[in-house]
């Protein structure tokens, strides 16, 4: 092992993996909440839908489109002042969270909106005919009926997030990207780059695997 990867400090590697998982999971929770809210707002305020409202629709759809248009590496720099204001530094995994969430929530928001659009209009009409409140329609019909699509969307988003954490690593966010870049690439220790790549691929596969199983389990169509 030591011959194959001469430059690797195994404790550092484990620590970096932990940081990557920490950033991914916390940012994923933030993305889930913010993205679901954004997706719901776009869907509900769209013409002909439950809260048909041009102003809210234009604003949310506009914000989502703008944030999705900004490349992630640039987004990190753009919100540096916010990060510093919140955490006093822009270094470390926690400081990377705002950028990660702002980068992926609009993406997930779109996926949520697409998933909601797939919900059969007739089912919503049936719920209205039963005298359901808007909140009942949102939580018990819209979100429940689109759950498999929401979960598979979240899987896709999680994998994109793992990639984002590696990008954030290049400006010192910590994690496997950081380790591969500063200890591997800049010092010409390619074995570190290889092992970090391998670990990231494994993490992605695990996320995909879990996502597929959950989607399959809840899909009763």
């Amino acid at each position, binding site marked *: 092992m030591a011959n194959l990867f001469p430059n690797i400090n195994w404790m550092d590697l484990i620590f970096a993996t932990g940081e990557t998982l920490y950033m991914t999971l916390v940012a994923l929770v933030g993305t889930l909440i913010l993205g679901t809210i954004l997706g719901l707002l776009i869907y509900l305020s769209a013409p002909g839908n439950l809260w048909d409202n041009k102003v809210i629709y234009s604003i949310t759809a506009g914000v989502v489109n703008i944030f999705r248009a900004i490349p992630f590496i640039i987004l990190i720099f753009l919100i540096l002042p916010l990060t510093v204001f919140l955490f006093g530094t822009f270094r470390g995994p926690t400081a990377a969270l705002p950028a990660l969430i702002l980068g992926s929530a609009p993406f997930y928001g779109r996926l949520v909106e697409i998933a909601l659009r797939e919900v059969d209009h007739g089912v919503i009409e049936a719920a209205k005919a039963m005298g359901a409140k808007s909140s009942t329609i949102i939580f018990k019909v819209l979100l429940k*009926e689109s759950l498999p699509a929401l979960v598979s969307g979240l899987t896709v988003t999680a994998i994109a997030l793992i990639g984002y954490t590696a990008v954030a690593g290049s400006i010192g966010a910590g994690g496997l990207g950081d380790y591969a870049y500063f200890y591997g690439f800049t010092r010409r220790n390619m074995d570190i780059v290889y092992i970090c790549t391998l670990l990231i691929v494994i993490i992605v596969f695990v996320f995909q695997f879990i996502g597929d199983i959950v989607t399959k389990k809840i899909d*009763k169509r």
Partner: protein
Amino acid sequence: MIVIEQLSKIFKTNHQEFKAVDNMSLKIEKGEIFGVIGYSGAGKSTFIRLINRLEEPTSGTVEIEGQNVTGLSKHDLRIKRQEIGMIFQHFNLLWSRTVEENIAFPLEIAGVSKGESAKRVQELIDLVGLTGKEKNYPSQLSGGQKQRVGIARALANNPKVLLCDEATSALDPETTDAILGLLVDINEKLGLTIILITHEMHVIQKICHNVAVMESGRIVEQGSVLDVFSYPKMPVTKKFVEQVMGKPDDELTDDLLLEHISDGHILKLQFVKETANQAIISEVAKKYEVDVNIIQGNIKQTQEGAYGSLYVQMTGELTAVEDALQFIRSTSVDVEVISHG
């Protein structure tokens, strides 16, 4: 009773106005099955949605049991809707819920307690004949079973009115009959008023008491099913009646009859709302010394009895034939002698 007055729905597109429902007025008695028939685009789907305000009327009023639905606030409308069941062409079940969870949904909305809800759900499952399917998901059911879930769900909060939006149009003929049978059953058992819209005349013929024919957003003809069947006035109504009775041309003309059958009397028996004398042929043959030969007939069963006509050839001694005719005339069946042999 449901009173609909001058109900209109106008859809506005960029530069055009489209009157989907145009100044409709109707009275529907409590406990009746009322059918609205029309071709697609006639406005019947919009009409039924105006009743529970899934579509907001442009003008006019809908009154259910003395309460003006069109004047209700959003909150009151939600409560009122719990008294108006609705079933749909494509069932509109929640695929993420089992049969029993689907039926429990309107009870959750109405805030019924868990224990009470479970009891009610079981009653409904038994009522619609889905016992044993409680834990199944909609994807595991046939179309007819899905509609049974739809019906059970619509009945959960003991509604006074059931709206049926093309409820059998997606089903095969056999399943259609079973679902129509179930609707008649619950209409009789629960005294529920049923309003159904359809483009299939046999649905009207089988279960409705009264019918309105819609064309271009208006009611062009209405009355009891038998009256509309017996004396259709408008061309569109005649077309619908032909759907079940066949075209008038399909019946033998008198000339043709005479050409082929030369002996005996040829009689045309007309049945309207007939319930008592459906066995008249065998009765005549037993009572009198005559032979009765059925030439052609077309009899349909409706909610109010049999309707249609029957051509028969009657042979025998003249006095016996006269007596038999006398007897038929004494019943409620109309008889017309087309030829004497």
